[in-house]
């Protein structure tokens, strides 16, 4: 090996230490370094290396399969090993991490073979299937090129050591630096002294350190960079505690046509019009943000039924409609440091069924249900009119959350209310109808936000929306309506979620751009929260108008990923079986890798005896003679011509007399076999008779010998 003594050992120790595999690393390192002490070597040829490399590849495939199935079935992990969902849900990342972390182990046979090989390098053709194939087809360009892989292995160890979780970056950085310096020391140029070398090394260290610090800072900046903004505009995830609106911001609202939710009503017509993720009670006018009014602690864990899959949100409520919802959880909980997401639920949701068994669900007073985990989630929601998870309005308490209106918005609200000319004796329904009418008559939907609604010290964006611009997107409508309702003494909340309107097959799809905000208005007579949406119905058209022509392609892709995700989701507990069913396949594969050469030879032999090419003269009686002589202890080698072999076979003194007649016979036999004009019938007969005679002579000689 070209690496300096003990370098690989140190690298493997470093890797083992960071990956919690210290013992494995030490053993592997020792095995490699032991080659410097012993002279024992194997003589491996190119084919052996091909096989070892193929073995390593299969090993890696098995590992990927194992990690994938073992890890991704987070549920199984969670159920059987009592692990938290947080670890299990991270499965995709974990798969990659574990696979990369074990890389030095799975490629070890190859480096080990090199270390114990007579020539300490591996053929270039072994590592590339393309080169192997080209070589088999006669391309000799890469034949005889050999490669020392010890340095590559060294880097694999360093790389894998970097894929760790249990230690900070500092340790890795310094370990990496020391190991690299060690490796570089032995290959430094003799043209320069130690001082320039040290200076160059320090420069490298400084650059590396600077970059590490820079990366850390960049990561910090990105993490702190208005997480809500990113969440709203990029991944459209909903924070149940607050909803920062984009009111008063300039620019075009852009939401993609990505499909985020799929609905499958149990019966046609069961589909809800809205899927609510969260509702909010408190409007902070400076920040243009709605707050839920409670904290994280506001979330109470829900309890699951005996079967582990049914969650009774509202025990006792009769829910007539049922719908299957497939959504993606893509949130992140800072408190838990784990992924979680808000479930999009139909209003008045009473029960969740067929929820994956390991789920943890929590709900707050505003009807938001948090689920821990990431990725696809499928469940059935039973819902109906009437009671919901939301707490009743707290109009009687001191907080008055559901009736509170920011003081600086009051003048504008009052002005609008006077414009509506609501009779003093109008009941709540009439008031709501008036508001609805007012918005429908005087307001337009717009996703473009100009400077007209920019906040100034004296006016808020909402004021401008209500009094001057009178156009905006759903957040304006919803916020204004909530405040108007409250101003009219109707408890109201600001709801965020999705509008369901795009049929697809027997169900519906919901795209990211279908994200919507609307109001929840309290109905004092039924004592329920009702959806109240004042956004002009044209908004769906406006959003849809931005559809790109190739949307169907994206939809197809989404459909395929969804089907795959669904398959994986549904088959979560079957994955183990899939893995086990893969094992026989791998065994067969391994068999072919290890014994391919033999198989090929056998094939060659078969080809030679093809029935299509019957050589003439194979019926010669001479073969009986050959058989007889071969049985006496001198079988003919495959490459040995008959004449040479006869000299050997007839060397026995006992067969002295036979020599010249057999030679004569061989001439006849050769003519029968190799002369295209063949033997005459007479000579053919002669061959037959003389062979019989010779056979008899041998038998008599044998019996005579025995008698003696």
């Amino acid at each position, binding site marked *: 090996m070209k690496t300096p003594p003990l370098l690989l050992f140190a690298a493997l120790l470093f890797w083992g230490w960071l990956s919690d595999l210290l013992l494995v690393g030490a053993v592997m390192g020792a095995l490699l370094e032991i080659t410097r002490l012993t002279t024992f070597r194997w003589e491996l040829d190119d084919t052996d290396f091909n096989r070892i490399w193929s073995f390593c590849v299969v090993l890696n495939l098995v590992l990927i399969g194992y990690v994938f199935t073992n890890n991704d079935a987070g549920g199984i992990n969670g159920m059987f090993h009592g692990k938290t969902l947080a670890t299990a849900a991270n499965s995709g990342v974990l798969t990659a991490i574990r696979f990369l972390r074990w890389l030095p182990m799975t490629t070890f046979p190859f480096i080990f073979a090199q270390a114990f090989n007579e020539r300490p390098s591996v053929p270039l053709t072994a590592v590339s299937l393309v080169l192997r194939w080209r070589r088999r087809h006669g391309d000799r360009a890469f034949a*005889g090129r050999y490669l020392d892989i010890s340095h590559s292995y060294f880097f694999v160890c360093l790389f894998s050591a970097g894929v760790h979780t249990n230690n900070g970056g500092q340790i890795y950085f310094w370990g990496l630096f020391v190991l690299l310096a060690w490796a570089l020391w032995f290959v430094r140029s003799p043209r320069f002294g130690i001082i320039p070398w040290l200076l160059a090394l320090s420069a490298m260290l400084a650059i590396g350190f600077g970059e590490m610090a820079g990366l850390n800072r960049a990561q910090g900046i990105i993490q702190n960079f208005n997480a809500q903004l990113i969440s709203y505009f990029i991944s459209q995830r909903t924070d149940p505690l607050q909803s920062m609106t984009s009111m008063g911001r300039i620019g075009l609202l852009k939401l993609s046509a990505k499909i985020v939710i799929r609905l499958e009503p149990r019966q046609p017509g069961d589909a809800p019009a809205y899927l609510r993720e969260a509702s909010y009670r408190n409007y902070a006018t400076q920040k243009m943000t709605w707050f839920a009014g409670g904290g994280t602690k506001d979330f109470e864990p829900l309890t699951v039924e005996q079967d582990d899959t049914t969650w009774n949100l509202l025990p006792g409520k009769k829910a007539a409609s049922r719908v299957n919802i497939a959504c993606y959880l893509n949130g992140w909980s800072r408190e838990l440091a784990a992924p979680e997401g808000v479930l999009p639920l139909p209003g008045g949701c009473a029960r969740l069924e067929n929820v994956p068994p390991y789920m943890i669900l929590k709900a707050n007073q505003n009807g938001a249900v948090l689920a821990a985990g990431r990725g696809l989630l499928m469940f059935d929601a039973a819902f109906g009119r009437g009671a919901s998870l939301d707490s009743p309005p707290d109009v009687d308490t001191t907080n008055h959350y559901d009736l509170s209106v920011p003081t600086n918005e009051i003048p504008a609200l009052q002005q609008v209310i006077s414009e509506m000319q609501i009779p003093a004796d109008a009941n709540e329904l009439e008031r709501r109808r008036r508001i609805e009418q007012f918005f429908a008559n005087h307001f337009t939907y717009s996703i473009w936000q100009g400077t007209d609604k920019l906040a100034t010290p004296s006016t808020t964006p909402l004021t401008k929306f209500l009094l001057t611009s009178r156009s905006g997107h759903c957040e304006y409508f919803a916020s204004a309506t909530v405040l108007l309702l409250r101003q009219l003494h109707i408890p109201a909340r600001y709801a965020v979620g999705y509008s369901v309107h795009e049929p697809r097959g027997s169900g519906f799809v919901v795209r990211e751009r279908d994200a919507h905000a609307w109001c929840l208005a309290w109905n004092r007579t039924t004592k329920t929260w009702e959806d109240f949406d004042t956004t002009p119905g044209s908004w769906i058209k406006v959003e849809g108008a931005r559809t790109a022509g190739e949307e169907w392609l994206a939809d197809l892709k989404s459909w395929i990923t969804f089907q795959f995700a669904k398959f994986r989701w549904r088959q979560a507990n079957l994955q183990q079986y899939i893995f086990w069913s893969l094992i026989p396949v791998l065994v067969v594969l391994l068999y072919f890798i290890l014994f391919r050469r033999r198989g090929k030879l056998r094939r060659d032999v078969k080809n030679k005896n093809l029935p299509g090419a019957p050589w003439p003269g194979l019926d010669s009686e001479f073969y009986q003679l050959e058989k007889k002589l071969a049985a006496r202890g001198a079988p003919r080698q*495959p*490459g040995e011509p*008959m004449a040479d072999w006869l000299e050997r076979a007839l060397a026995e003194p006992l067969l002295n007399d036979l020599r010249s007649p057999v030679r004569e016979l061989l001439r006849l036999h050769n003519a029968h076999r190799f002369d295209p004009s063949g033997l005459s019938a007479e000579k053919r007969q002669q061959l037959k008779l003389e062979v019989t005679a010779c056979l008899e002579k041998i038998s008599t000689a044998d019996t005579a010998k025995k008698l003696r």
Partner: protein
Amino acid sequence: MTPANLAAARETYRRIAANIAKIIRGQDSATRHLLAAMAAGGHVLLEDYPGTGKTTLAKALAKSIDAQFKRLQFTPDLLPSDILGVSIFDQRDQQFHFHEGPVFTNILLADEINRASPRTQSALLEAMGEAQVSVEGERRNLPDLFFVIATENPVEFRGTYPLPEAQMDRFAMQFTLGYVSAEEEVAVLTAQEHHHPLDELKPAATLADVIALKRAVEDVRISHELKRYVVDLVSATRTAQGVQLGASPRASIALMKTAQAMALFEGFDFVTPEQIQKLAVPVIAHRLVLEPQARFSGITARGVVEEAVKKVKVPA
């Protein structure tokens, strides 16, 4: 049963071989190889140490068949025109006259062929391949019997231009004479005690006999199975370990033709596997290009061919 022309050809061979044996002692197998190459229409490259009788063998052959013999010593300053000939302007009749070079002969001994420049070498090699030369745009045919015996010194490499692999391929056979046994060498001394026996050598066959011999070789029969065996042997060298460039189909052709000649010499009217096996090394080995690594690990071209002969299943 044997056709008359084959019998006559065999007789011609015996006479020539016996005649040569008078001069060259203990080299029966080399003589047979040499004659097989000549009868098969190929050329021979002798690689051997100085003084082992290469030139004498060539001369003896030439004298035995009453053919024209020319010898050409290859040196670094030898020019193609020194081999092929040159047109010289004649003052008297105001015309160019072509003066034939030494290549216009029956038997040409190209001594130390690797000492001439590649340009000169290739001039000769073209003549060998095509049995014709093009001088000043005019094609001139060489005589019916044109047989080149080239020699190479395997020990000295300074100032030589080793023949490229493509040109090695033009030689039907390459073999060595080697040192004869002490007894034989004493016999050589005795024979030359007073004068060189070569001076007294009488022709044993006419040029026409030899041309008839060449024709007769073409009549020696070879079965399809053995043709297949020849191809299998040659292609086995292409996939052998340590071989960078295997033998070409030209090798297959040469192996078949020389085997036909050898079968004729050995008294067969058809080829048997033994002849193919015996000729495999001299016909194939010099055409192989080994990988540099393989050469250092002790693999030789000869070894590769011998291995192929051992491994490929012989028809029996």
